[in-house]
């Protein structure tokens, strides 16, 4: 077993060596511009892009003509939301999203609010799921778009996308979903799920960084999007810019591999995750799972270890890469807004750890992480005045703290 161990697969994934292998010739041998129509260099590059378009479309049950390449999910989210807001401005100016979306969605919505759009930020239930009735009630005749992520990047909770899509269809509102954490990991099908627009990125599915895609439905309904960049009119006029051919080829290969491996990877990751959870819960009292386990990505575990602060926990397991919802790990000093939206108090939000299992993890690594976590939590609790008070039976919520 090699250290450090990588368990932060929601942040990014290792590029699969098979993906790198597929990309390599497109840097040196087939280096043509996919937009060059009058020589073989261009044709070969275009063939590579076309294959990738098909591979990605197949992963999500789309038609290859419905895949628009971008620089990543941030750009895809911007293009989708701003593109719809501009294109459908005459029909309405109301957008609905959730409080726990990625910043690429939330900040895009905030930007549009400054331009006169009205945005509803739906709260979350304790489970991490949005309330479908609340969504239905929020839709007005001015609503043009609902943007709800498929699965959350922190708590891994999978929304009831099919139902959300159905509601949007009934109400004749476009449905965009940020699908980066779900696509390639669990079955995603744009037809079955009633998705109109979906953001994707290669680096969350063992592909390269800096390449993303936007699925844009072509019929029933035909979705139109205003380009956010002016230029050569690439990608059906929706996203100008010379295509990142090697990146796109890698993205395609990554999508193909995910598609092939999904049936074996899902149960494997779920078993590893469940063992990690059971071991930690068995050895440590006062641990809490954030978000429902029922509707969750099989490779995600988000757990709070009460009376121990997240960053000092990370420091104790410095040969394991995970992330913490604790404020101290960020420059903002505010604990995770996703955990707070679940109704978690700041105290528990400060003590959470996100584990993200991936393709290259082994059982041995999971056992090492569990053992290390138990050691460090136990050691830090010995150091924690809160733990001492809890053990003495003091109700911490009744203590008068000197907040500062």
């Amino acid at each position, binding site marked *: 077993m090699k250290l450090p161990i990588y368990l932060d697969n929601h942040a990014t994934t290792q590029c699969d060596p098979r993906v790198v292998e597929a990309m390599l010739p497109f840097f040196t041998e087939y280096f043509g511009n996919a937009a060059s129509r009058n020589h073989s260099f261009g044709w070969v590059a275009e063939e590579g892009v076309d294959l990738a378009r098909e591979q990605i479309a197949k992963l999500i049950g789309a038609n290859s003509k419905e895949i628009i390449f971008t620089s990543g999910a941030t750009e895809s989210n911007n293009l989708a939301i701003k593109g719809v807001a501009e294109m459908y401005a005459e029909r309405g100016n109301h957008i609905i999203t959730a409080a726990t979306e990625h910043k690429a969605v939330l900040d895009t919505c905030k930007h549009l609010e400054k331009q006169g759009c009205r945005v509803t930020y739906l709260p979350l239930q304790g489970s991490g799921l949005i309330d479908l009735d609340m969504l239905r009630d929020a839709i007005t005749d001015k609503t043009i778009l609902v943007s709800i992520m498929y699965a959350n990047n922190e708590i891994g909770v999978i929304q009831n996308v099919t139902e959300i899509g159905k509601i949007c269809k009934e109400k004749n509102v476009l449905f965009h979903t940020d699908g980066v954490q779900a696509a390639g990991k669990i079955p995603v099908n744009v037809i079955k799920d009633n998705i109109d627009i979906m953001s994707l990125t290669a680096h969350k599915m063992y592909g390269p960084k800096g390449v993303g895609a936007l699925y844009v439905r072509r019929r029933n309904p035909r979705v139109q999007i205003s380009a956010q960049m002016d230029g050569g009119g690439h990608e059906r006029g929706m996203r100008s810019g010379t295509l990142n051919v090697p990146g796109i080829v890698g993205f395609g290969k990554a999508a193909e591999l995910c598609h092939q491996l999904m049936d074996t990877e899902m149960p494997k990751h779920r078993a590893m995750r469940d063992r990690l959870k059971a071991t930690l819960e068995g050895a440590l009292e006062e641990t809490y799972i954030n978000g429902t386990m029922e509707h969750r990505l099989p490779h995600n575990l988000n757990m709070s270890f009460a009376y121990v602060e997240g960053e000092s926990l990370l*420091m104790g397991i410095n040969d394991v890469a995970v992330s913490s919802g*604790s*404020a101290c790990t960020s420059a903002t000093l505010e604990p995770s807004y996703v955990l707070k939206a679940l109704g978690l108090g700041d105290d528990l939000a400060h003590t959470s750890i996100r584990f993200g299992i991936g393709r290259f993890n082994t059982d041995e690594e999971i056992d090492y992480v569990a053992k290390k976590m138990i050691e460090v939590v136990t050691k830090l609790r010995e*150091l924690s*005045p*809160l733990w*001492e008070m809890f053990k003495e039976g003091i109700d911490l919520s009744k203590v008068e*703290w000197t*907040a500062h």
Partner: protein
Amino acid sequence: MAYSEKVVDHYTNPRNVGSMDKNDPHVGTGMVGAPECGDVMKLQIKVDPISGIIEDAKFKTFGCGSAIASSSLATEWLKGKTVDQAMEIKNTEIVNELALPPVKVHCSVLAEDAIKAAITDYKKKAVSTPALV
């Protein structure tokens, strides 16, 4: 965030971890911070009533590595000082000693507050039990 060697050392081998009897008239206890802020520091001093010198100091901290290191360092500095000398410890000295980055200055402020709170608590006890002074 990359930590200085001294922070890592205090985090890995925290000095003077523990608790003293807070009802002991020679013990002053300071607890600052709040769980929802992500850090709580408990600092205790035991003062020799004749010399006025801090003969022991203990801490327990819930917080990040820098908070743990700041309070651990504080206990080291407290021991052997008189109560008045201890009152002079400044958070900036802790920042310098541990090479804390700007975002962690807060932890040193907390440590200074904990020191002051422990001394205040001790003095309050001393006044109410004059025979001990």
